[in-house]
């Protein structure tokens, strides 16, 4: 009992606290019905998609089995989750007179099952939407994106072209790692004397990040060719184009990566610098042995993000005539009046970016764990 006028005041008027029991029965029945409706829509959509497929023979049977299994799974799972929700709600209602706690627990379980239905329904509807979309106009849309013959014809060129993308990506990445660090260190160069250096670095970063990459690529690749800029004038044909393209991309992405490095360097607490300098280490030694090693560890995830961007942007090099995958896809597309090769080229990129993205996620999660544990 709180003392009158004490720190814990008596509540005026007294608070009425109600402990309700919710069975969620109405929503459970609604979710069961909604789930069944979604399953029906999905089944119709998949059926339409199947009709629009331009495949024959064994492939057709495989598609039939796969799509039927998908429709059946969606129906069974949605119906099961909906039924569970209703069953838990009914049980909750039945338990109210006997055991209020168990009744509430059962009501909460019903709510969980309703959420399962909601989540699965949204997913099924998105799948259904794409199935409808692709089957529109008697499969004309599907034929534009998934023409098996066109993809078949393109495949050999795809590997040839994409191999070039990978080469550009790997070489540019190595250049960017070094160039970005140089720019970042220039950007945080200390003291009054460092001001012009900092200004130059900022100007470079602002400029190359502000310029659309495609313009920079035009200017550097075509300009350096026309102007016979050394050392590129010593190279010939494809090799020349490769190195010019790679350099252009590295110059652009160096600006982005410089900002990542800078953020990493500045994220290391000044007390680390204080500790290092107090031991007699010079500024350079402090950067080299204490700050940069810690920063590099921290920036690996954002760095990989930029690399995913760099890997995709190798496709920009198609505009200056490098025979990379997008250029080759376009050649085949134009010949066949069909977009499927472009989609196939896109898939090739995705196959590389997805593992890279998951690897990045894993690193981020691991760092978060390490911080929480430390």
């Amino acid at each position, binding site marked *: 009992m709180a003392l009158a006028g004490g720190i814990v005041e008596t509540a005026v008027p007294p608070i009425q606290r109600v402990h309700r029991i919710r069975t969620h029965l109405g929503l459970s029945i609604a979710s069961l019905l909604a789930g069944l409706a979604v399953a029906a829509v999905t089944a119709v959509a998949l059926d339409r998609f199947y009709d629009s497929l331009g495949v024959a023979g064994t492939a057709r049977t495989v598609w039939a089995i796969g799509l039927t299994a998908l429709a059946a799974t969606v129906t069974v799972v949605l119906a099961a989750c909906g039924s569970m929700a209703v069953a838990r709600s009914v049980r909750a209602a039945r338990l109210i007179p006997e055991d209020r706690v168990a009744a509430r627990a059962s009501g909460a379980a019903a709510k969980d099952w309703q959420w399962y239905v909601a989540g699965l329904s949204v997913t099924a509807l998105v799948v259904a939407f794409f199935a409808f979309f692709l089957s529109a106009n008697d499969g004309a849309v599907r034929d534009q994106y998934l023409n098996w013959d066109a993809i078949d014809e393109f495949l050999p060129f795809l590997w040839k072209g994409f191999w070039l993308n990978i080469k550009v990506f790997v070489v540019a990445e190595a250049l960017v790692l070094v160039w970005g660090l140089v720019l970042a260190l220039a950007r945080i160069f200390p003291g009054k004397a460092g001001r012009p250096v900092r200004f130059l670095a900022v100007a470079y970063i602002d400029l190359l990040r502000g310029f659309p990459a495609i313009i920079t690529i035009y200017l550097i690749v075509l300009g350096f060719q026309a102007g016979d800029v050394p050392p590129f004038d010593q190279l010939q044909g494809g090799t020349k184009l490769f190195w010019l393209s790679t350099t252009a991309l590295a110059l652009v992405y160096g600006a982005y990566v410089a900002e990542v490095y800078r953020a990493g360097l500045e994220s290391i607490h000044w007390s680390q610098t204080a500790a290092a*300098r*107090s*031991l*007699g280490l010079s500024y350079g030694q402090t950067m080299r042995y204490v700050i940069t090693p810690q920063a590099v560890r921290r920036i690996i995830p954002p760095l990989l993000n930029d690399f995913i961007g760099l890997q995709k942007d190798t496709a920009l090099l198609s505009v200056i005539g490098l025979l990379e995958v997008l250029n080759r896809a376009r050649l085949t597309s134009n010949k066949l009046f069909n977009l499927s090769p472009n989609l196939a080229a896109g898939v090739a990129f995705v196959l590389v970016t997805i593992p890279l993205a998951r690897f990045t996620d894993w690193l981020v999660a691991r760092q978060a764990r390490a911080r929480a544990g430390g």
Partner: protein
Amino acid sequence: MAFLELDGVYKQFGANHVLRGVDLHVDEHDVVCLIGPSGCGKSTLLRCINALEEIDGGTIRIDGEQASGRGVDLDGLRQEVGIVFQSFNLFPHMTVLQNVTLAPRKVLGLTRKQADDRALTLLARIGLDAKARDYPDRLSGGQQQRVAIVRALAMHPRLLLLDEITSALDPELVSEVLNIVRELADEGMTMLLATHEMSFAREVSSKVCFLDEGVICEEGPPDQIFGDPRNDRTRIFLKRIIEAGRL
């Protein structure tokens, strides 16, 4: 001539005048404790002596050599003056051994073998040689702070600055750190420490300075400062410490 001499040291951060003319003399083998309320400038004063902060007025001399302003060999000065921080500031990407040997190798030019041997000897003295290959995050706060002390000692400083080195520690870990300081005092290491551990200050120091609002209000032998403070502000400060049960 005292080993460390501060004359009218002045320091401001913007409009905030942290040190307003500090005069302080520390003789060789002295252990001087700085006490005073939070924000009175204890830490800033230590950081100025190590030239981690530039002073705005006055002079600092170490062994007669100018240690402030433009005419000072910063890296040389810092080799003579070690500092241990409240938050340890170990390098998290290096093992204990690498933490201790980095400066001796890169600044003093010792070989890895020489530096390792000396570091292991020092670590053995504080009972942490078994942890030499561990990273700092595997160590308790008390162990980390002991390593930080050894890291400073590995440079063989002639003056050791200790900046509230037990303030970030759990109470039961304080004694293991203070014991090292006690040993160093017995061995004659010249030390200047900012601390809130009043009974430790009374026990270990040869001189106690009460710092408030950027000046040293009162200084004297520990028994006089704690037993018979003459300055009003010192009295009020100590009264509050006693009320909090810390003395």
